[in-house]
């Protein structure tokens, strides 16, 4: 089984490790936190505002009104919660784009993983690297 010697990775400097660690934090911050900070993500909702709301005008029956009151709500305080609805209208183009991103992500991941996996198997079983 003559082949190339096992792959010997370079030694990463302490500075390089710090940079890599900070990079992961920055990545979390940019991709996950900033969209929330700028209210770009989540809560695809719309709110209907009713002037001078009553339990009746909010569509709440007597039992519902009683439970709201036990929870410490008045019609004015509850109106914002009751009037908020998810907006499920969407365009198919955005659905297709999102689906393409997810499917593409998995396809690329499996292809690259397989390429790396072949190196792993070659080195583990044959003692050589095909990389």
């Amino acid at each position, binding site marked *: 089984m003559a082949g190339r010697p*096992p*792959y*010997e*990775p*370079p030694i*990463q400097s302490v500075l*390089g*490790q710090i940079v*890599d*660690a900070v990079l*992961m*934090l920055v*990545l*979390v*911050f940019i*991709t*996950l*936190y900033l*969209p*929330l900070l700028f209210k770009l*993500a*989540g*809560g*695809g*909702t719309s709110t209907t505002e009713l002037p001078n709301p009553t339990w009746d005008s909010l569509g709440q029956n*007597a*039992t*519902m009104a009683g*439970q*709201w009151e036990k*929870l410490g709500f008045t019609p004015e305080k*509850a109106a914002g*919660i*009751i009037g*908020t*609805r*998810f*907006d*499920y209208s*969407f365009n198919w183009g955005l*659905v297709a784009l*999102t*689906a393409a*991103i*997810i499917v593409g*992500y998995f396809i*690329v991941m*499996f292809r*690259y*993983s*397989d*390429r*790396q*996996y072949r190196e*792993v*198997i070659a*080195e*583990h079983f044959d003692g050589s*690297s095909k*990389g």
Partner: protein
Amino acid sequence: MTTVQPIAERASVQLAAGAEAAAPPPSAGRKVALLRVLGPGHVWALGVGIVLVGEFMGWNFAVGKGGAVAALAACWLAGILYTCVAMIDSEITSTVAAAGGQYAQAKHIIGPLAAFNVGLYLVMAYTMLEVSNAIVAGDLIEAFAQSLGLEGAIDKRAFMVLTVVALAFLNYRGVLATLTLNLVITAAAFAAIVVLFVATQPWAPGTVLKHEALLGGLPYGALGILAAMHFGLWFYLGIEGTTQAAEEVRSPARALPLGTMTGMMTLLIAATLTWYVCSGLMPWEYLGQAVTPLYDAARLTGSRWLELFLFLGTLFATVASANGCINDASRAWFAMGRDRYMPVWFGAVHPTYRTPYRAVVFFVPIAILFAVSTPLDQTITFSILSGLLGYTLMALSIVLFRRKWPLGSIQRGYVHPLHPLPAALLLVLCVVTYLAVFLGYGTQLLAMMAFYIAASAWFVLHRYKYVRRGEQFTMPWPKPRGY
């Protein structure tokens, strides 16, 4: 007590391996046998303990997305999804009995990039669950203070920060005692659900529970059932953690599927009880956005002692879950550092406490940042999305596993029946859940994908050069078919 000891042992073995990993080559030092002391009951306790917090908070956002009836449908549909997860994971984990769970499985079955992503799924799912728990703990204490007439006297953000920092400190110092305590308080939390159910007199509809007047039908129509599937996963997220104990069970072939499936049944029952009590006490609009639904249900019964019991139950469940999350996330991060998927600096073990202290501390600022400034539904969505990506990968992974090592080619602890039907069903339900998340939270779905795509690019273009190739495969198996 006996239940948690092996967990600590497993952690200590992993950490010992990590300590050796700091001085290459590490592989020879990893052959440490773990004590096989766990039975099906232990596996059951491990799974239910991780997941039970999902009954106390988060699931009810499914009500907000589709109404109470849609949430019940989502609860059962998600139950089918997790049954498939449990079946597939039982086979893989009882066979790939390597420390590191799904991360180690991906290394052996798919390859390093997939393993890197699975490691990140675990870290992000657990960290965002920890954040969610901290948010609930803060909100709960504020609500309880208000109910005692102390409105405005406390700042809930202080309790959120305190929860994260205190639990990180405990994990820094070592977790045996806290994991032992975890089991006790999980049992108390489960008892709280059952007591609340009995106290609401379910045998006399209309007396305390008023479903007829409160249910509210399907406010979004059938689309609401699809949309509710998003948060329906929260009822069970983490049940796959049962199979992490594969190396420590006496009889994996029996204990893993039995413990996991009985865990699933327990959660299905607990989820249905929770839904029944809450939907019979609260208008769906309130329930759909409540931070502490079970505690609110207890308040609505008018019983002070029940309110106190559910306050403690919710607090216990969230603290126990957050503690477990810090433990699990830090170990996944540590394992990635040990394998050089992340800087080896994270693969270090504390010289005195034998904990992955750098990995524990690393996520504290992220957890605090999200806890004090992010709505609960958003952090839960991040956690669910990471779990969902992992389940999708699992459905594909089992197909590769059976193809690379067909039945009979290696010894399997457990063979799940009807393959590939569970994998196909799991994949279909995952697609349904992606659509459900897209409805209302599409931007977050894209943000999460952007994170994993950018991280994957970083791994392929930069990080992978530090990884030792041959050491990624440690199982004593023949060469995979086709390689």
